[in-house]
C-alpha cells in the first residue's frame, strides 16, 4: 500500500483487516519526520509514545475489538491545541514547556476514533500571523520551495501535510489560518461553521472567530476528519446541536445547476496575475461542469480587515489576561532581593513572555476596548459585523455557494514580508469575512504559479451558508476531480 497516496479510509481499512499494522504505519511516518523535517521545521514536538499507542491499537484489532473510523491514522496537531502529556505551547515563549493535563475535545475525539497523535506542529505565535515566522521555534518552510513561507498561522500543519510527514493534520482558523496555508502548500483545508467544532482545550486567540478544522490531502479525507471532530460538546457552550452528517459517505461531485456566487468586490481587486488567471480558470471549469455563475455584491467585504483586526485584537487582549505568570507559563526571573510590585511581576512576565506581534495586537485590542474609544472601534466593528453577515445571508438567497481566491498572491519568500503590519493585515482581505460571519469555508488545491524554478500551488476558496459543510465538501469534491486540480495532484513538492 502506498501510504503517501492512499485515502485515510483505505489505510484504516487495511489496518483493521491486518494487511498492515498500525505500528508499521506509525513508524513509517516517524521515519519520514526524522528524515525530512530538518528541511521544514514543521514539528515542534514528536511524540515518544506514538508507537506504543499503535501497538495497543494493533492488540485491540488482534483481539477483534471494535476500533474507530480513524484507527491507525497518523495525525499531526497544531501546537495551539492542548494534548495531554505533550507540550502545547502555541509556539510562544509564554507557554514554553507547558504540558497540559487534558486533551482538547478535538484531540480526544480523534483518539476515540483510533487516531495516533504523532506530534505537534509549528505555527505563528498564538496563531497571530500568516507566515509562520512569529513562532518561538523559528520559521517553518514551504515544501514546494524552502525559501518561501508555508503561510500561517497553521503553517506547520500545511507544510507537514504537503510533504506527507503526516496522514492528516488539524489546524485552526481565526481569520484564514487554515485556508491560507492550505492554499500556499497545495493541500485541502476546511474552516467549519462557528459552533461546529468544540473550542475546549484550544488555546484561545479570538473566541468569537476561532474554529479548528482539518488540513489534509483530499476532500474525502477532509470529510472523514470533519465528521469525527464536529458536534456539540458540554465543555463548550458555543457548540451547536446541529446534526453532524456523515460527510464522507454523502460526498457527491455533481454540481450541475448549482449557482455559484462570485463577489464582485473581490474579483475586481485581485492584485496578482497568477491568482487572477487561476481564478478565471476555476470559473470556466465549474461552468463546464454545469454550474451557473452568479455575480453578487457584498460591499462591506472591503471593511473586513479593519473589522477583523479590531475584533480579534480586542478579544485577544481580554483572553490573554490569563497569562499572569502565576498558574502556568512564563514567569519573570526573580529572587528575594527583586522587590517586585504586583504590577511589575505581571508586566515583566507578560512583557518578556510574549513576542512582538502578540504584544502589538494586545495593545491594539486594549486601546480599542479602552474608555472613550470602545464605541468608535470595538462596538463600531461589531455593528458593521452584523451588517456584513446580513449582506452574506442576502447573497446566499441568490447562490448556493460563493467561490473566490484564497490569497492575494502565491507563497512569498521568508523574510520578505513587509515590516509594515498594515500591509500584511490587508493581505487577509479574502479570508476574514468568513470568520466574522461564522460561515464554513474551504481551500482546495487547484492550479499553480511558476516563479523562476519554483512551482507554487494556488487554491480556490469556497464559502457556504451556515452548517452547509456537506454542500461545501461536495463542491470541493467536484473541483478536485477537474483536469487542472488532477494535474496539480500529479506534482510533488520539493520536500517529499
Amino acid at each position: 500500500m502506498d501510504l503517501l497516496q492512499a485515502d485515510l479510509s483505505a489505510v484504516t481499512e487495511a489496518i483493521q483487516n491486518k494487511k498492515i499494522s498500525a505500528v508499521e504505519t506509525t513508524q513509517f511516518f516517524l521515519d519520514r519526520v526524522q528524515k525530512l523535517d530538518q528541511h521544514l521545521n514543521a514539528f515542534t514536538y514528536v511524540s515518544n509514545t506514538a508507537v506504543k499507542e499503535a501497538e495497543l491499537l494493533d492488540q485491540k484489532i488482534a483481539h477483534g475489538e471494535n476500533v474507530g473510523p480513524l484507527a491507525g491514522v497518523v495525525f499531526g496537531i497544531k501546537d495551539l491545541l492542548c494534548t495531554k502529556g505533550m507540550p502545547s505551547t502555541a509556539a510562544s515563549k509564554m507557554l514554553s514547556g507547558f504540558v497540559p493535563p487534558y486533551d482538547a475535545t478535538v484531540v480526544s475525539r480523534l483518539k476515540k476514533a483510533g487516531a495516533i497523535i504523532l506530534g505537534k506542529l509549528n505555527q505563528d505565535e498564538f496563531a497571530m500571523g500568516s507566515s509562520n515566522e512569529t513562532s518561538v521555534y523559528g520559521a517553518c518552510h514551504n515544501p514546494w520551495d524552502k525559501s518561501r513561507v508555508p503561510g500561517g498561522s497553521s503553517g506547520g500543519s500545511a507544510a507537514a501535510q504537503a510533504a506527507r510527514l503526516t496522514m492528516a493534520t488539524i489546524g485552526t482558523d481565526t481569520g484564514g489560518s487554515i485556508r491560507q496555508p492550505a492554499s500556499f502548500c497545495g493541500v485541502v483545508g476546511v474552516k467549519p461553521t462557528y459552533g461546529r467544532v468544540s473550542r475546549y482545550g484550544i488555546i484561545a486567540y479570538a473566541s468569537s472567530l476561532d474554529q479548528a478544522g482539518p488540513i489534509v490531502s483530499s476532500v474525502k479525507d477532509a470529510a472523514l476528519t470533519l465528521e469525527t471532530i464536529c458536534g456539540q460538546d458540554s465543555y463548550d457552550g458555543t457548540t451547536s446541536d446541529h446534526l453532524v452528517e456523515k460527510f464522507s459517505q454523502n460526498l457527491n461531485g455533481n454540481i450541475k445547476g448549482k449557482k455559484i456566487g462570485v463577489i464582485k468586490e473581490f474579483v475586481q481587486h485581485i492584485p496578482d496575475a497568477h491568482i487572477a488567471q487561476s481564478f478565471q480558470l476555476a470559473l470556466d471549469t465549474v461552468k463546464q461542469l454545469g454550474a451557473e455563475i452568479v455575480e453578487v455584491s457584498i460591499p462591506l467585504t472591503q471593511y473586513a480587515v479593519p473589522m477583523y483586526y479590531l475584533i480579534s485584537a480586542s478579544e485577544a487582549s481580554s483572553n490573554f489576561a490569563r497569562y499572569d505568570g502565576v498558574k502556568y507559563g512564563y514567569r519573570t526571573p526573580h529572587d528575594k532581593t527583586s522587590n517586585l510590585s504586583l504590577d511589575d511581576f505581571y508586566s515583566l512576565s507578560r512583557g518578556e513572555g510574549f513576542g512582538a506581534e502578540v504584544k502589538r495586537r494586545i495593545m491594539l485590542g486594549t486601546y480599542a476596548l479602552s474608555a472613550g474609544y470602545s464605541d468608535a472601534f470595538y462596538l463600531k466593528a461589531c455593528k458593521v459585523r452584523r451588517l456584513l453577515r446580513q449582506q452574506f445571508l442576502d447573497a446566499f438567497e441568490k447562490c448556493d455557494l460563493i467561490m473566490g481566491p484564497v490569497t492575494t498572491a502565491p507563497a512569498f519568500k521568508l523574510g520578505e514580508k513587509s515590516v509594515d503590519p498594515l500591509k500584511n493585515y490587508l493581505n487577509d482581505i479574502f479570508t476574514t469575512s468568513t470568520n466574522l460571519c461564522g460561515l464554513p469555508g474551504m481551500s482546495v488545491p487547484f492550479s499553480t504559479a511558476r516563479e523562476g524554478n519554483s512551482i507554487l500551488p494556488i487554491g480556490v476558496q469556497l464559502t457556504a451558508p451556515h452548517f452547509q459543510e456537506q454542500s461545501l465538501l461536495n463542491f470541493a469534491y467536484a473541483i478536485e476531480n477537474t483536469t487542472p486540480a488532477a494535474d496539480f495532484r500529479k506534482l510533488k513538492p520539493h520536500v517529499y
Partner: protein
Amino acid sequence: MAHEINEDLIRQIAQLAKLTISDEEIANYMPHMKKVLNHFSELETLNTDNIEPLITPVDLKSYLREDRVEKNISTEELLAGAPSSIGQLFQVPPVI
C-alpha cells in the same frame, strides 16, 4: 476622529495591558499603531444607526449541562504546570 498616538499614549496602553515594553518597542509600535488605527477609522464612515453589535456570529441556543460533580483533573496535575507551587497552592513572590 483624529487619533493622537503619541509616546505617552503607547505607555498608557502598555500599562493598561500589563506589558513591560522597552523604549525601542515604543518607537517601533508608535508609527504602526498610528497607521493601523487611521486606516481602521474608515469604519466610522459607515452608518450603523440602530444596529445592534454582533458579538457572536452564529445564533446559537444557550444550553446547560446537568449539574453534577465530575472529577477530571486532579489538583496535582493542575499545579504541575505552575512556575512554582507549595503544597496545594500556587506560590508567588511577596508583592506587598
